[in-house]
């Protein structure tokens, strides 16, 4: 199973993505990183069909962009950037929405994120981390081949962020996973492959082992240092420009 992407996208006359091409396979977690406004979220929205890009998105040579939404939802699930839940659905009702047109299993999805016992609770009473897990469960309930996650760890405390990343490490064995990550530290620890976007172009792609501080410096403008410790590899960043001094 192989997802190949080659898309461009414009909002009116403003070019947001320019010939961003890559392919993804099962068994690896792909992190899309890059500065604010690079087009990372737009890329996920193009692949998931929320936006209509120019170009192609193919899953094993099946053109997914031309599929009707129902059929696409069985193949590709999208986990939006976490926001505060606005309606008082129960956890079960919320996850069920993933199954309306796909026929997946709610129980299975809830069990995978460890929330099976909590189906009756209101999503508005969950913590940010728990809500993120429920959103992932909704995507899992679609029983998709591909999962796209837009900043799955933003707003989460470090423990929930790690919990989500570990969950993704297991899921990548059965699904193609592409996640936009702002946290570079988590990206280099958990991703297998990294795609860097800047100003709507893909500027670098490679395995996480090939990523060097110099590459990141070229994209972000900060200085970087990789460090090795007992718990694994980490990243230290420092501002390279003159700091803003409000005093």
């Amino acid at each position: 199973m192989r997802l190949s992407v080659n898309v461009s996208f414009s909002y009116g006359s403003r070019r947001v993505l320019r010939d961003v091409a890559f392919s993804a396979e099962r068994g690896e977690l792909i992190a899309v990183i890059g500065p604010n406004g690079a087009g990372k979220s737009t890329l996920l929205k193009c692949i998931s069909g929320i936006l209509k890009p120019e170009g192609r998105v193919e899953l094993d040579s099946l053109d997914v962009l031309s599929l009707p939404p129902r059929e696409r939802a069985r193949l590709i699930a999208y986990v939006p950037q976490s926001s505060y839940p606005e309606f008082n659905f129960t956890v079960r009702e919320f996850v069920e929405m993933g199954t309306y047109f796909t026929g997946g299993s709610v129980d299975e999805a809830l069990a995978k994120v460890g929330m099976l016992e909590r189906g009756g609770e209101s999503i508005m009473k969950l913590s940010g981390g728990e809500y993120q897990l429920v959103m992932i469960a909704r995507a899992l309930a679609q029983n998709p081949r591909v999962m796209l996650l837009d900043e799955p760890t933003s707003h989460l405390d470090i423990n929930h962020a790690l919990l989500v990343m570990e969950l993704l490490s297991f899921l990548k064995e059965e699904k193609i996973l592409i996640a936009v990550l702002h946290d570079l530290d988590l990206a280099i620890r958990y991703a297998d492959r990294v795609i860097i976007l800047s100003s709507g172009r893909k500027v670098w792609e490679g395995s996480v082992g090939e990523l060097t501080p110099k590459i990141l410096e070229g994209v972000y403008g900060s200085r970087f240092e990789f460090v090795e410790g007992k718990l694994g590899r980490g990243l230290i960043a420092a501002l390279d420009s003159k700091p803003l001094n409000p005093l």
Partner: protein
Amino acid sequence: MRCRTIFTVLLLLSAIFLFAGVYIGSVSLSPSDVTSSLVYGIERSLPGFSNPSAKPRFFVIVWELRLPRVLMAYLVGISLASAGVASQALFKNPMADPYLLGISGGAGVGAAVGFEYFPSHVSLLAFAFSLLAVYTVYSVSKVNGRIPVDTLLLSGVAFGFMAGAVTSYFVSIGKNSHLTYMWLMGSFSASGWGDVAELSLVLALGLSFFLWKWRELNLLLFGEESVTLGLNVQRFRKEVIFFVTLLTSVPVASTGIIGFVGLISPHIARLLVGPNHRRLTPAAALIGGILMVAADLVARTVARPTEIPVGIVTAMMGGPFFLYLLRKHKRGELKR
């Protein structure tokens, strides 16, 4: 289980209010006057009826005046409430009501023009202008075949103000402005069996669509993203706009612009059965029907023997409730 109880209570309340609506009025009747007239009326409409001499007293009041009127109030309440639920899902906004698409504004202009120049075609003009209004709001908002709901909402509001100005113009220069004015507030005093039949047909279509599409309405709350859950969101929005227009413009054309019921009923229903449209739409519809029958009852008895427009009653009930919702909204609890 709890939901079943709620629906049973709502159905019982419907029956009670419908009966009360027929029973109470400016002419005092006894309960047996009402039941004998109802029984006679039903018998008369069955095939093989032959006993024309036994017509009960007050039959005309019960069967020809009050019953169609009360039924009409109930059906209009159901229409506006279910259109309200769908509008709130469409706009992803709990402050939305079915009039936001420009229907009330257009209907007001149509009625004002009608009362001044074509007094025998007021309903028809109100209906035609409300469709024209929705079409205008819709066309202005459409971008490349898509309908961004934020734009739709804003153009609906802007159109409402313009239509209000045009209506006010006709009211201020017209000779029949008191009629226009009364019409704008809404009334069931002229409702007959014809109106009931017409609206039943429309309601059968529109309400079954919204009941059938409860999953799609749930997904609509996620806006553009709902496409990733399998909803053809652009097409479904157009269908929702069509059926909201149907369920709103037909009652408005025959009874005037009755506010607040389409806004409040979904909220009360949400408090009772939650946000899932599988239960929300039927609950809101029943609540809308009950509220409208109750409001009409107040409208024709509070200043007996004069009737006040039912829109005054719904606004008096709805206004304070709306303010209460606004206050809750500030605390971020509104959508619960």
